[in-house]
């Protein structure tokens, strides 16, 4: 009796969750893959037609798709250079402070603000007529730099990334802080006695020991930067002139507005594959060197 329960028990407990994931995650991915090999019939009542790799071939010659993909990759780079580095610096500054949890709580506040709300509020800050940013620049004597940040293709992508960065450095800071607190302080004492200066200590002790945390943040940043949608959809809708177009927004547009579900399925398949490969590369590189 006990034995039978022992054999069945775990599956009974796992059943609901696995079934759930099967319906709402695994099946959709398989279905998405399947859909990507078809195209809609000539009329609404016609069955979809198998077209092999035609949708993927179309992707290869779709300039807008490549532009969107480049913007996603630029977003990965910007997100590593700006919020991840800021988060690391803030965490290093905080780790030995008594008020660290207070600061961390304040820095984390933007993370709790919905991305759509951040996009709305920053839209006002960037507004050319009443925006706080241009007004601030005027006050400090840099009025010449004032511009319509989100409306100019030259500045739009970076400006919109600042919105994402604003909601992200607090997350990074909190995670780095937890990682730093896990490092044994005696290691630093030993290094101090050996005469290592603070930069040296950071470079040869903190960073290597922080590696698992760094890898997590990098992978998380890559996944987030490749799949994000809300901020662009609300702040710029991919404009002006497609200068902030990203894959998720382009795919959404193809699917919802243009009814191109098969082509959109191929696009999201490629995006998923890229996310997977990039994440695995970071993880593999990180584990090889240790």
């Amino acid at each position: 009796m006990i034995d039978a329960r022992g054999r069945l028990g775990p599956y009974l407990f796992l059943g609901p969750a696995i079934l759930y994931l099967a319906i709402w995650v695994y099946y959709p991915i398989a279905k998405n893959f399947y859909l990507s090999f078809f195209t809609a019939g000539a009329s609404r009542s016609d069955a979809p037609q198998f077209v092999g790799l035609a949708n993927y071939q179309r992707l290869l010659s779709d300039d807008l798709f490549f532009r969107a993909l480049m913007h996603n990759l630029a977003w990965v780079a910007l997100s590593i250079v700006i919020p991840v580095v800021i988060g690391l610096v803030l965490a290093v500054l905080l780790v030995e402070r008594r008020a660290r949890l207070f600061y961390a709580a304040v820095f984390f506040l933007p993370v709790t603000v919905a991305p759509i709300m951040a996009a709305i509020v920053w839209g006002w800050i960037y507004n050319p007529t009443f925006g706080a940013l241009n007004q601030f620049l005027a006050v400090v004597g840099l009025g010449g730099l004032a511009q319509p940040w989100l409306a100019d293709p030259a500045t739009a992508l970076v400006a919109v990334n600042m919105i994402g960065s604003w909601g992200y450095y607090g997350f990074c800071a909190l995670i780095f802080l937890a990682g730093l607190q896990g490092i044994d302080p005696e290691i630093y004492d030993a290094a101090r006695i050996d005469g290592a200066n603070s930069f040296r200590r950071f470079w040869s002790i903190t960073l290597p020991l922080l590696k698992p945390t760094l890898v997590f943040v990098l992978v998380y940043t890559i996944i987030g930067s490749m799949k994000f949608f809300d901020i662009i959809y609300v702040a710029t809708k991919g404009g002006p002139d497609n200068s902030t177009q990203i894959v998720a927004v382009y795919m959404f547009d193809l699917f919802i507005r243009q009814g191109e579900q098969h082509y959109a399925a191929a696009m999201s398949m490629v995006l998923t594959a890229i996310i997977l490969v990039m994440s695995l590369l970071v993880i593999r590189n990180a584990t090889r060197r240790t």
Partner: protein
Amino acid sequence: MHATFNRLGATLGANGLLILFVIISLFPVYLMFITSLKSQAELIQNVFALPRNPKWGNYPLVLIERSYYRAVINSLMLAGTVTIITIVLSCLAAYAFAVYDFVGRQLLFVLVLVGLMVSEVSILIPVYMLLKSWNLLNSFVGLVLPQIALGLSFGIFLMTTFFLQVPKDLVDAARLDGCTDLQLLMRVMVPVSIPAIGALAVIEFLWTWNSFFFPLVIATRQDLMPLSVAIIDFMGRFTFNYELVATTCVIMFVPILILYVLTQRSFRRGVTMGAVK
């Protein structure tokens, strides 16, 4: 002497940087609050300061006259339901992973982890088709079901790492006392893991409350929209009523702010537990 100056400079620089980021973190939130209380005219003349005549009337106007109380209820119901179901499913699955060794354990756990990398974007189209064929578009159930899938892997992962930390002696003792699996879960694992469950609850609630992508596609009928979609819908119709858009934003943010202030430790635990392992 030189070294002391360096140190002083470094301390000043460090404090300056921290204060700068306190301001950067808080300013947009402050702006949102004051904008919701200003008139159109004041908005342009007076960007940074508090409103001279706060227009508190914007709140009843948006909530009652424009019926945004409905979106508040929708969001509360959506986030609440998703959070509860996610916790139940996660605890059940985590129990199996943490307590049992069984055929396929590794494989199933990897399958769960794969779910961590799957995004809304990769499953949008089939999920939409599935909901359509089950007649669940524009329904509360249709909003809840796929939303749970997005956080479930994280929940299982989090609860499994936590359940694994429960001392084995405790489990064995309960077993000897004749506890069934369900009793062991409810009377031992869950009570010991309340902090972790609290962390999962606040994170899941926040995610769902702020979620936008699926609800945007699934809830196109106004009376079903959660706040995130309702705000964008509102903006589409009243783009230049900045103060009213700000009011809707504040209405969406205040419950999260309260939750955040009250359960900060849970937030911190939820965010860092997944990362630092």
